[in-house]
């Protein structure tokens, strides 16, 4: 049996396989080079960048809950300029596509970030409009279709690169947001971001996070993410990148069958840095077992009759 085709096209972005590593869970790539062959990945979504470096939230920044992790990192990052100088040259040597996640506090800041990143040789931009940790930015843009579209438009007008918008699950109608950002020019949507959450230490009667609240990620999110992906692929004909609690090939396959064209591995990178590599191999084996020659035969193949 010949080699199966894993290549997918998301708008204008072509990936050698549909498996990426999610923003914030893989640093700037170099942290994992001793443990993971970056050439095998479909894409690396870099830790969210802002115009200026950002310090982040006071610790503690992490708390584990059953099958999940709540984080309140606070978007700490080295800023776009240092990323371009210090991190990007290293990342470029690998076959994985480089997708840079960005966030700002105004449409102008998003536009500036897009403009600065455009000529640097990266492959795509992922726009964070949904980070729940920041009061002044992020989340507010992502909860309203008009502002979500405004940010998307600001980015698209200032770059030739493919643009993906990362959606928050904390909205009443995710289809409306997805539709708005697509009409504003996005190549696709990444979904979902973390779910706002908190945890309390009953002995000290204090919150377990320095920031009080954070974003929940990990395996406990998977059923929720899958349902939201389903809502969007059912209603709209757009490329969806499925994210949320994927820890193994079976999880990834659920998203692909539901209709996601690609997926991102997040929290599972911490648990097993090899997760993405194992997921790619697992998808290939599954296709071979089903005697499918192309991943597109699988994507959106959800059978609704019982």
């Amino acid at each position: 049996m010949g080699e199966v085709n894993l290549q997918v096209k998301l708008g204008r972005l072509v990936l050698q396989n549909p498996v990426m590593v999610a923003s914030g869970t893989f640093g700037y790539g170099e942290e994992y080079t001793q443990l993971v062959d970056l050439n095998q990945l479909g894409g690396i979504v870099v830790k969210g960048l802002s115009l200026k470096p950002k310090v982040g939230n006071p610790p503690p920044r992490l708390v584990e809950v059953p099958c999940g992790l709540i984080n309140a990192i606070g978007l700490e990052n080295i800023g776009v300029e240092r990323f371009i100088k210090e991190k990007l040259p290293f990342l470029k040597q690998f076959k994985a596509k480089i997708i840079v996640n960005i966030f700002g506090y105004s449409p102008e800041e998003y536009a500036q970030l897009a403009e600065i990143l455009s000529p640097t040789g990266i492959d795509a931009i992922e726009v964070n409009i949904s980070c729940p940790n920041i009061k002044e930015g992020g989340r507010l843009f992502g909860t309203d279709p008009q502002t979500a579209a405004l940010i998307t438009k600001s980015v698209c007008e200032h770059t030739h690169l493919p643009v993906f918008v990362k959606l928050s699950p904390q909205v009443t109608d995710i289809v409306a947001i997805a539709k708005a950002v697509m009409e504003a020019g996005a190549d696709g949507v990444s979904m979902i971001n973390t779910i706002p959450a908190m945890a309390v230490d009953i002995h000290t009667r204090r919150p377990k996070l320095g920031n009080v609240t954070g974003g929940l990620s990990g395996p406990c999110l998977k059923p929720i993410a899958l349902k939201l992906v389903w809502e969007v692929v059912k209603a709209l004909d757009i490329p969806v990148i499925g994210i949320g609690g994927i820890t193994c090939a079976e999880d990834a396959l659920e998203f692909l069958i539901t209709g996601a064209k690609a997926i991102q591995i997040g929290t599972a990178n911490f648990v097993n840095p090899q997760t993405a590599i194992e997921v790619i191999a697992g998808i290939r084996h599954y296709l071979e077992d089903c005697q499918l020659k192309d991943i597109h035969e699988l994507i959106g193949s959800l059978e609704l009759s019982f």
Partner: protein
Amino acid sequence: MILETARVIEHRHFIIPQAEHFHLLTFLSPEIAAQVKPGQFIMLRIGTQLDPLLRRPFSIFWQEGKTISLLYKVIGKGTHLMTQWRAGQEVNILGPLGQGFTFISGSPHWLVAGGTGIAPLFFLAKQLSQKNISFQLLWGLRYRVAQELIAFLKQHLDNLTIYTEDGSLGYQGLVTEGVEHLSQQERPQVIYACGPMPMLRALYAWTKKENIPLQVSLEAHMACGVGACLGCVVETTSGYKKVCQDGPVFNAEEIKWEK
């Protein structure tokens, strides 16, 4: 930094009534054993299930040949599950991670431990012995520990002094009181310490007054252990630093101790 499937070769449980309970877990882990330095740590996966989810960080307590050992107490779900591991159990380990202790010339060196904080210092003590550097290891505990554990420790080094808060073993009092007492006899070139934050804070206040360099090994909740998630930061004089990658050992004067 390596991902290695290690095998448990020995698991000893030091459990007696009205005492602090410790567990000594030894793995055959040749690749990590060949590289690890005192003060470095590993992240181990509790199992293949999703709860507990994240790897757990542990300082290396001992390294000999192709083996590494951890000395731990049960503090939650993960460590509770670990106590059930028997010889032959395979465990996925990521390590060695972080920056260990920095050797300072001259002697004597003092090693000051609180509770499970003895782990990285015992490994350091081994290397100091091999380098013929004279040192003292002071270990503070709340209550006594099993004699078998003391016997195990003393079999490897004889200059161990124990302090318990209730006086049920060794001297009664805090280990920091032991430090002040010992300072009437000799002056250390450097102090290495690991233990609860109040102990480290008190020790730093004293070393600052006495102008003695102090290196501390810090604990933090971690997700990745390799500097990617930015979850384990500590506030320093030059901003937040990552305990996993910039530490876990820091010069105490770098840390912002005030709360």
